[in-house]
């Protein structure tokens, strides 16, 4: 599918038709992978080779390594990555699967975080309860976004969600201003003597939640709902002609992703311990949106890569600044401007990826992988015929 004509300029006539090939291919590839993983479990070979199984194994190994080998700081960052990962994967549900738009993930996180902070101090604070109630509230907010989302597409939906970001942020500010100026302190959850807000239990909670979300979504995206969203994304009119209920599936995407994001907000509240409206800013929203695109839209691993990047890049810059310890001016400058340099890198990376490889880092990785395989084959082929040819000439 060609992205557009040779004519530079507006391509406004059929915006839904122009699904770039690079964006479409990882989605379909992933869908088949998920199908293989869940469908052919009976076949031992297919099961052990499926990407879902391999992904789950890698995930488990990483989790166990961090859980037992990681310092307090590593555990903290691991929890943060898992929490952001839940949000980015849920954002991708909107962008990459249903073809919808949402610019306010931080606002929905705020709903979960404030709900959790408030409930944790009340009688409802027994651990999974605030998380589950946040999940439900998130779904309700998703329904509220979804209703205008049924009417609008593209630009207008984008502005609606932008307005939502401002309105929820304002409501949170008012709520916080009326009740507590310094924000809400989250009462750490506990089961008897087990303190769940300690680094290790909290890390486990976040990775289990992320694991459940990934498992659930890989099933959903590979099945009938995934095909319905795929059809809606590619051509809404055609999808409705095929008998897909647009209202139901669009609302389902908004409700589901918002519920998951609010649950992530709940975990985030437990982690930071003090919930303030300023945390859930438009900046955070835009960062989370950008991360999905950097990692790779329409895949499950792409958004996770984005979440890893958003947490670890500032730390990577810190490491680089240590390399320049011989030059105090350079390392000092890097340390001082760590966050700004990281922002600059995100911005540049996003622009470059959108221009050259719209599938994000995942697609870049696949391309490099294919390139390496092709180069390997070429090398083998280049060496083999030469031997044969010399043999033929000198019998």
């Amino acid at each position, binding site marked *: 599918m060609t992205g557009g004509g040779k004519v530079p300029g507006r391509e406004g006539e059929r915006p839904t038709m122009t699904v770039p090939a690079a964006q479409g291919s990882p989605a379909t590839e992933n869908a088949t992978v998920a199908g293989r993983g869940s469908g052919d479990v009976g076949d031992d070979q297919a099961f052990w080779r499926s990407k879902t199984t391999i992904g789950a194994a890698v995930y488990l190994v990483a989790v166990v390594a961090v859980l037992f080998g990681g310092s307090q700081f590593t555990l903290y960052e691991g929890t943060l990555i898992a929490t952001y990962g839940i949000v980015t994967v849920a954002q991708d549900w909107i962008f990459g699967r249903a073809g919808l738009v949402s610019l306010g993930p931080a606002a929905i996180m705020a709903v979960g975080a404030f709900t959790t902070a408030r409930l944790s101090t009340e009688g409802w604070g027994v651990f999974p309860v605030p998380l589950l109630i946040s999940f439900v509230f998130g779904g309700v907010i998703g329904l509220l976004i979804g209703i205008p989302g049924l009417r609008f597409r593209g630009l207008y939906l984008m502005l*609606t969600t*932008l307005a939502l970001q401002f309105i929820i942020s304002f409501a949170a500010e008012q709520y916080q201003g009326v009740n507590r100026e310094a924000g809400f302190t989250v009462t750490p959850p506990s089961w008897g003597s087990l303190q769940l807000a300690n680094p290790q239990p909290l890390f486990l909670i976040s990775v289990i939640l992320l694991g459940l979300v990934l498992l659930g979504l890989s099933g959903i995206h590979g099945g009938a709902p995934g095909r319905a969203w795929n059809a809606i994304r590619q051509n809404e009119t055609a999808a409705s002609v095929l008998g897909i209920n647009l209202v139901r599936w669009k609302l389902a995407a908004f409700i589901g992703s918002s519920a998951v994001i609010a649950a992530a907000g709940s975990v985030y509240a437990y982690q930071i311990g003090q919930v303030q409206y300023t945390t859930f800013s438009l900046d955070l929203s835009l960062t989370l949106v*950008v991360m999905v695109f950097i990692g790779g839209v329409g895949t499950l691993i792409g958004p996770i890569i984005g979440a890893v990047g958003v947490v670890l890049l500032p730390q990577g810059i810190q490491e680089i600044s240590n390399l320049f310890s011989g030059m105090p001016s350079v390392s000092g400058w890097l340390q001082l401007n760590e966050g700004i340099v990281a*922002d600059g890198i995100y911005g540049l990376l*996003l622009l470059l990826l959108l221009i050259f490889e719209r599938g994000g880092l995942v697609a870049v990785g696949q391309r490099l992988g294919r390139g390496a395989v092709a180069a390997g084959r070429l090398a083998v082929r280049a060496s083999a015929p030469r031997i044969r040819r010399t043999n033929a000439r000198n019998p």
Partner: protein
Amino acid sequence: MSNDVATIVINGLVNGCIYALIGVGFVVIFRATGVVSFAQGAFMVLGAEIFASLVNDGLSTGPAAILAAGGAFIFGGLVYWLAFSRLTGAEAFITSVATVGLGILVEAGVLLIWGPAIIVIPQLFSYQVHHVVGQLGFSNIDLFAMAVTVAVFAVVLFGLHRTPVGLRMRAVANNPRLAVFTGVNVLVTSTLAWAIAGLTAALAGIVYLVGTQPDPGSIYALGLAAFPAILLGGFDSIPGTLVGGIIIGLVQATVAVYVGGAWQDVVAYGVLLAVLLLRPQGMFGSPQVARL
């Protein structure tokens, strides 16, 4: 005229002018290339910072503003030429996300060069108020903001409707494919549109800087705060942006006086939601924009 009303009219008009200045570049970009730009705030910061450093080096206001706006003009053109011309034909949402990336990148660059502190410039215009009717009076700062706005709108509207270049730009806005067949160089025309947007955004940044002495982050945020004004006027209407900007400015000033300053942003976005539900094309926009 009572004191409250005078405050509302003055603040409403001045803020409305700034929204209109941000919006005019937005509309020019949207018409020419179909891109919904989230990067107007970044161009504003760039213009304001260049202007501030020139003024602080002893240059007078006029030349400094011209140089800063000229720098943003070239930068805006380069951005389209190097990056966004390659995104032609992508979905509107993809190009919008790309402008978010551009905004983050430019903002980071500005912060690395000039730092995140409040931009300090010497006082360029007096606060002395020229009274018009009763309590209603404008200081030189207010007059500067309104004069720049009127001049920009006059030049842009004259240029679009009375010059050959403007004719080409309107042709591209109307139908890029057909414009190519009639011999219009779409790349050059679109680049010019982005350059103009950079220039007008830089002027908006300068006007805002002269009035309030903000930090770079709040200038950047103002670029996003202009969306309600742009939508109210209509996404593809240049005069609409001026009307929408002034209406939003007046509404916000009224709310600030009678309800509280904290409500300003949320009221603007409330208006945005109402416009989306009742009349998505805005006051002067063309109806087909609503189908996006």
